[in-house]
C-alpha cells in the first residue's frame, strides 16, 4: 500500500525538484462540492490527468470508540446512529444484536420483522441519496430532485413510526422501542411500491443515457483482487462481481425467509457499481413488501432487564449496512458500559482502495469515481 504523504512532504518534494515534470498538486477537499463532507484528496495532476491521488481522512474524527467507553448502552444506541448519518437504523442494529447475543435476550418475531422493514426502508433512503449525488456529480441535476421526491415519502412513513428523519433511535436491545402506529403499514407499502413503479424513470434518465454511459463505462475499474485485498464490501464489491452480502451469506434476523436477489455487476466500473445500487433499491423494496405482508402479531420488545448490563464476554456481530459490511466487536467486563467496542465501518475500507483506482485517470473521472464509491464521511472517520 502506498504510504500517505503529508502536505509538508509534498511541498518538500516540490521544493527539491522531485516533480520536475511540472505536475501540480491540487487539493480536492476538504471543502469541495464533490467530497460529501470534509474528505480530502491530495491529487497530483498533470494537466487534466491525475498522476496520483491520496485520500486524507480524519477531519471528522470524533473518537467514537473512545466515546462509547464512557456511556451506557442506551446512550450508545443513539450515538452510533449518528455514525453513518444516512443509515441510522442500520447502524443501531448490530449493536442491539451484539447485546442480545451476550445477554441472551429473545427477540419477539414481530420485532424481527419490523426491524427488517425499517432496515430495508433505511437502505432505500441511503441508496436514493447516492443515486442523487452521483447524478449531481456528473452534472445531471434532475435525478437529485426525483430521488428526493421518493425519499420524502419514505421518510414520512419512518417519521410517523419513529419520530426521527435521519437518526431514529428506535432500536432497543431485545426489540424495538414501541410498535408502529396505525397507518404506518399502508404508508410504507405505498411509498416502496411507488419507488418500484418509478424506477423506469431513473433507468431512462441516467442508466439508459448515452452520455452517462460514456462517463461511467470502463471508468474506475476495480478488480476482484483489489476488492479482496482491500476488504471492500457492499455495492462496490458486488459491482466488481464479488457476491458478498451478509444477508445471504450469514442470514441474521429473518432474512432467510424472504425472496430477494443480490444484484451482481461484472466489470467493476462506475457504471456497474451504480447499476448494482439502483437495482438494490428494487430488491429492498421487494423485501419490505414481503415483510409487511407476512408481519406477525405480538409484542415488539422481548424480556429485557431494567438495567442493560452485558455479562463478561466478547462477541463480534456483522450486518449488511447499505454501504457494506458493518461489524461491532464488543468486549464487556460486566459493566453497564462496554469495555471496548471496535467498529469496522464499510466506508473506511472502501475508501482505502481509492488511490489504486484513481491513478492515471482524468480529473473528471476522479469525480465519477468518487461519486461511485458510495461513502459517508462520518462512517470513515467515526
Amino acid at each position: 500500500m502506498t504510504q500517505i504523504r503529508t502536505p509538508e512532504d509534498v511541498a518538500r518534494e516540490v521544493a527539491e525538484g522531485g516533480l520536475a515534470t511540472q505536475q501540480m498538486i491540487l487539493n480536492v477537499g476538504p471543502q469541495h462540492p464533490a467530497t460529501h463532507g470534509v474528505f480530502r484528496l491530495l491529487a497530483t495532476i498533470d494537466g487534466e490527468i491525475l498522476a496520483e491521488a491520496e485520500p486524507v481522512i480524519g477531519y471528522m474524527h470524533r473518537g467514537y470508540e473512545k466515546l462509547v467507553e464512557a456511556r451506557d448502552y442506551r446512550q450508545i444506541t443513539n450515538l452510533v446512529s449518528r455514525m453513518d448519518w444516512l443509515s441510522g437504523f442500520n447502524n443501531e442494529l448490530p449493536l442491539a444484536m451484539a447485546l442480545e447475543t451476550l445477554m441472551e435476550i429473545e427477540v419477539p418475531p414481530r420485532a424481527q420483522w419490523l426491524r427488517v422493514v425499517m432496515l430495508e426502508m433505511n437502505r432505500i433512503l441511503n441508496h436514493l441519496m447516492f443515486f442523487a449525488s452521483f447524478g449531481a456529480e456528473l452534472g445531471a441535476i434532475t435525478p437529485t430532485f426525483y430521488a428526493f421526491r421518493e425519499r420524502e415519502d419514505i421518510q414520512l412513513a419512518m417519521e410517523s413510526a419513529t419520530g426521527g428523519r435521519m437518526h431514529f433511535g428506535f432500536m432497543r436491545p431485545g426489540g424495538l422501542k414501541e410498535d408502529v402506529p396505525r397507518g404506518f403499514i399502508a404508508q410504507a407499502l405505498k411509498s416502496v411500491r411507488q419507488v418500484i413503479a418509478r424506477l423506469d424513470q431513473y433507468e431512462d434518465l441516467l442508466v439508459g443515457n448515452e452520455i452517462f454511459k460514456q462517463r461511467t463505462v470502463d471508468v474506475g475499474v476495480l478488480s476482484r483482487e483489489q476488492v479482496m485485498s482491500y476488504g471492500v464490501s457492499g455495492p462496490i464489491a458486488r459491482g466488481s462481481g464479488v457476491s458478498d452480502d451478509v444477508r445471504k451469506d450469514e442470514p441474521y434476523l429473518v432474512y432467510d425467509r424472504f425472496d430477494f436477489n443480490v444484484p451482481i455487476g461484472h466489470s467493476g466500473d462506475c457504471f456497474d457499481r451504480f447499476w448494482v445500487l439502483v437495482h438494490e433499491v428494487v430488491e429492498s423494496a421487494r423485501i419490505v413488501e414481503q415483510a409487511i405482508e407476512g408481519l406477525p402479531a405480538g409484542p415488539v420488545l422481548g424480556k429485557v432487564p431494567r438495567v442493560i448490563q452485558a455479562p463478561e464476554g466478547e462477541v463480534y456481530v456483522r450486518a449488511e449496512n447499505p454501504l457494506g459490511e458493518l461489524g461491532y466487536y464488543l468486549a464487556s467486563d460486566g459493566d453497564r458500559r462496554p469495555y471496548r467496542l471496535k467498529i469496522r465501518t464499510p466506508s473506511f475500507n472502501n475508501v482505502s482502495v481509492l488511490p489504486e483506482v484513481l491513478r492515471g485517470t482524468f480529473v473528471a473521472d476522479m469525480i465519477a469515481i468518487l461519486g461511485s464509491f458510495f461513502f459517508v464521511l462520518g462512517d470513515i472517520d467515526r
Partner: protein
Amino acid sequence: MPEFIQNFELTAWWILAIKLIVVLTVVPVGALAGGYALHKVMAHLQHRLGPMYAGGFHGWAQTLADGIKFVLKEDIIPEKADKPVFKYAPAIIFIPILLLYLVIPVDRRLIVQDLDVGLFYLLAVSSIPAIGILMAGWSSANKYALIGALRSAAQLIAYELPIVLSAATVAMLAGTLSVVGIVEAQDWPFLFWPPGIGLIAFIIFFAGSVAEMNLPPFDMPVAESEIITGAFTEYSGMRFIFGYFFAETAHMIAFSGLAVTFFLGGYRPIVPWEPLTVIPGIVWFMLKLFVMVFLYLWVRPTFPRLREDQLQKFAWKGLIPGSLGLILVAGAWILYAPEWLWH
C-alpha cells in the same frame, strides 16, 4: 399635447438615443428574465415549483432580488491575484456579448445597425470572450480557476468553429453577409429547404452554441463538482455576475436571436398566409425567440456532462468535419441543383 412632443423631431441623434436606451435596458432585463425563466422552467421540469415568494406572484422578483444581493456583496480580490487583469476580465467577457445584440433584426426596420459584414462581425465579436475567460482564470492565481479557464477557452474555440462553419453555410444560401439580407433570403419553410442542409446546419449551430454557453452536457468549464466554478472560482459580487451569470443568460438570449435569424426566418411569419402576415414581425420574432430560449433551457436539466476529451472529440471528429462537408454539399446544391427546385 405638450408643445415639446408636437415639436419633437425624430433626428438621427434621437434614434440613436432611443436605440441606446432600448438595448441597454433589454440586455440586463433580458438577462434577469432569462435567469427567472431558467429557475422556473428547470423547476417545473424537475417536479418543483421554483421561486415562489420574492415579489409575490410566482416569485417574479427572484432574480431581481438576487441581483440586488450581488450588488451589495463584498468584492473580494484575492491577495495573490493579478489585480488589474482580475478586475476587468468580466468586462471583456460581457461587453462583446452586449455587442452581439446590435445586429439582430427584431423586425425589418427594427435593428440597431445593419452591417454589410454583419455575420462576420457577429463571429468576430463572439470570439473575444475566450480572452476574457483566460484572463479571469489566469489572474486568479488559483488552480481550479486555471484549469477551468483552460478548459473553457479550449471549449470556446473548439465550438466556435462549428458555429462559424454553419454560419458560412447560411451565408452561402443567402449569398450575403448582411443579417437583414439573410432573413430576407430565407424562403418558407425556412429550416427545411434546401432539404437537409438547413436542418443539419441548425443542429450543428445549436450544439455549438450550447457548448459556447457552457450549458450541460458541455458545462465542464464550470463543473461545480470538479472545479468549483472554473475560471470564476475567486470572483464575488458584481464581477461574478457580469462574468458568469449575466454573461451566460445574455449569451443565451443573443444566441437564440441568432438562431432565429439564421435558420427560423427571423421576423417573418411562420407560414406565408395572408392573415398571418398582418401580425407585426416583432411578434413573430419574439415567439420564435421564446421557443429557442426554451430549447436551451430544456437541454440544461436533461443531460449529465461529458468529459473534457469526449467534448473535444465530439467537436473535432464530429461537428467540424460534418460542417465542412455540409459546406461542400450546400455549394454543390446551390450551383448544380435544377432551377425549379429552388423556388
